[in-house]
């Protein structure tokens, strides 16, 4: 087996692909909360992907990628037996795992992928885990079974009510709070807007809230500063100071804007790639 080789690949939701990749050193070293930087080809960009799981005996890590831009579409089109160009990691500061009591783990869409190893570690540390998973509709859930295995209670929420309770993850969390449940910590990972809404809610109740941020990065090793955000007014770097932060201290509006810096470029690159794929397939 070659380093960075794709050993298995599965489509686990629309536009969401799970890869098992051979990279034994990272498989042995990685801890919950850490990520890798990958490239698909020689002219490729460096993108961060959270490590969803690892199998140290087999020497593999699991990456889950949602196809949204050129690189993630290209990754989804890679086949078993092919090798990624580069994988660097494990990067970022691992999650602080501690027995706190009751921990509510909230996953939105593909954010459930990075949430899973953290939930697993929190469960192992002896916490009572209440998991809330949310998505627009039923077919968009990932890792539901895995999350059930490491949770004491499980709440499912869909925007359209096609599965579980109708409503957002914030609705489900609000209900737990209203029911008077003791909550010692919330861990929320998902779309930036979801993490913002959760953080605004928990701030009112003084519930400590950890979020995991997925900003734009280049080197990912503390050199370029592209991933910077404002934490309580001070500049912090997601790649080395994070990716996890106190959700109550993040300047969410600034982060949301920064995430869109290259929107136009991303469209150009994706359209060119799709056109190229189409031409290849027609030929």
């Amino acid at each position: 087996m070659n380093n960075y080789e794709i050993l298995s690949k599965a489509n686990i939701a629309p536009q969401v692909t799970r890869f098992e990749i051979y990279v034994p050193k990272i498989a042995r070293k990685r801890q919950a909360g850490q990520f890798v930087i990958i490239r698909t080809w020689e002219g490729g960009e460096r993108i961060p992907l959270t490590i969803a799981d690892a199998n140290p005996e087999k020497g593999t890590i699991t990456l889950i990628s949602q196809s949204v831009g050129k690189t993630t579409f290209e990754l989804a089109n890679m086949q078993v037996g092919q090798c990624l160009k580069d994988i660097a990691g494990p990067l970022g500061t691992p999650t602080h795992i501690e027995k706190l009591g009751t921990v509510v783990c909230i996953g939105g869409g593909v954010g459930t992928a990075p949430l899973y190893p953290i939930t697993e570690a929190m469960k192992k540390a002896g916490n009572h885990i209440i998991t809330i998973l949310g998505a627009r509709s039923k077919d968009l859930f990932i890792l539901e079974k895995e999350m059930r295995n490491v949770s004491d209670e499980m709440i499912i929420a869909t925007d359209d009510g096609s599965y579980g309770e109708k409503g957002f993850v914030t609705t489900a969390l609000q209900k737990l709070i209203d029911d008077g449940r003791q909550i010692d910590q919330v861990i929320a990972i998902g779309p930036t807007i979801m993490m913002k809404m959760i953080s605004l809610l928990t701030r009112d109740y003084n519930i400590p809230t950890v979020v995991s941020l997925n900003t734009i990065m280049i080197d990912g090793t503390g050199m370029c500063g592209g991933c910077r955000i404002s934490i309580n007014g001070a500049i912090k770097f997601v790649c080395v100071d994070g990716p996890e932060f106190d959700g109550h201290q993040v300047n969410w509006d600034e982060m949301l804007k920064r995430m869109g810096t290259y929107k136009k470029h991303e469209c150009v690159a994706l359209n060119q790639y799709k056109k190229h794929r189409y031409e290849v397939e027609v030929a």
Partner: protein
Amino acid sequence: MKTKERLQIPPVGMQQQAASERIHNQNEVPLGFTPEEARLEALRCLQCKNVPCIAGCPVGIDIPSFIGFIAEGNFQGAILKIKEKNVLPAVCGRVCPQEEQCQLPCTVGKILKTTEKSVSIGTLERFAADWERNSGSVSKPKIASKTGKRVAIVGGGPAGLTVAGDLIKLGHEVTVFEALHKAGGVLVYGIPEFRLPKKIVKNEVENLQSLGVEFKYNYVIGKIESIDELFQEYDSIFIGTGAGLPRFMGIEGENLLGVYSANEYLTRANLMRAFDFPNADTPILNVSRVATIGGGNVAMDSARTALRLGAEHSLIIYRRSEVEMPARNEEIEHAKDEGVEFHLLVNPIRIIGNEEGWVTGMEVIKMELGEPDASGRRRPVPIPGSEFIVDVDAVIVAIGNSPNPLVAKVTPELKVNRWGGIIVDEETGETSIKGVYAGGDIVLGAATVILAMGEGRRAAKAMHEYMMNEKTD
């Protein structure tokens, strides 16, 4: 040839790509000497007995000897002489600040009363290195018999590559652990193509590989392996992890869309080839008015890169005057020729953005020079009431970096100063951990390629002695 005759030869200027042309391409600006030009320039060297130039070279190249060879037309002899002391001559010939080093004490310059008329040692070094590379047969230095000792080098930048070159020649096994996907450090992510073609760096790395140096890419030491773990396989370790997190000014608006650190801007353009987007995948903003804050070489590189990426106006905003600028004169001149607009004695107060968070301007204040500060340069003082707004749509902050935090963060026994720089013994480069050495920007903060190489050379010597005296258990 008599001294008088030598002094009468006018300095041979190096041909350059015209400014109007070069701002539209990434090609190198100075074109180097032809063999005839090199021999003529070499004849200007007086072959001084007291060799002041060698004292000015951080790696101690035998400058009069190699120039003597060039004058004779023995270019092979010249490059071999240089390589006795310098593992990266094609790089140093281009990016060393020779006017502050070997060319500063040059007797020719002294007699002719200006460093500008010193022998062009750097250009001659570059010529010899380019001649060898273009000849297709690169001479391999002699490698001592195997010592059985193994060396780990953390970081494949100028310091690390120098240590690798020196220690492989002494018979040690050498592995370079590089965090990025390419070796060269600042030579590949920072210094632009038009100042240092990347094929030259690649070539230098391949030369080291052909001598037996092993390169491991995507290897982030401090994350994938600790210093302790490296010691299980290696006898001595060199840390040359270089520049780390960029510094910002702490003013309003620094996280607006369109504000870059110079590290990010240059990494996108150079390492990630964003100038070739969308053929390469990494984007960079194409904007028409770019302000670069700072007065060093990195600021010049950023401002000149902005022009090549299509900016109509590229501004340098510097709070002192041109005399205090840390950039090389050559770089300042190149930037001016290309149309970079210098706004001196001006300091940013805040960056202004629109509703969507995009940069639209920058408020600045005029400065005047006061008393000298700790650096010996006159301290800039704001002139009250002189604020004004500059229209820009991107800002590049080029005011320096702190040392890379990764290794020190997970190695508590490694002593660092309050800026995060690794503390080393000045004679040997040894850190607070026995057998672990460090050099380059991780020790110096932001310095130059050749100073990093000088530190690498010093550490390599000490590492060799350490390993050869080490008791085998």
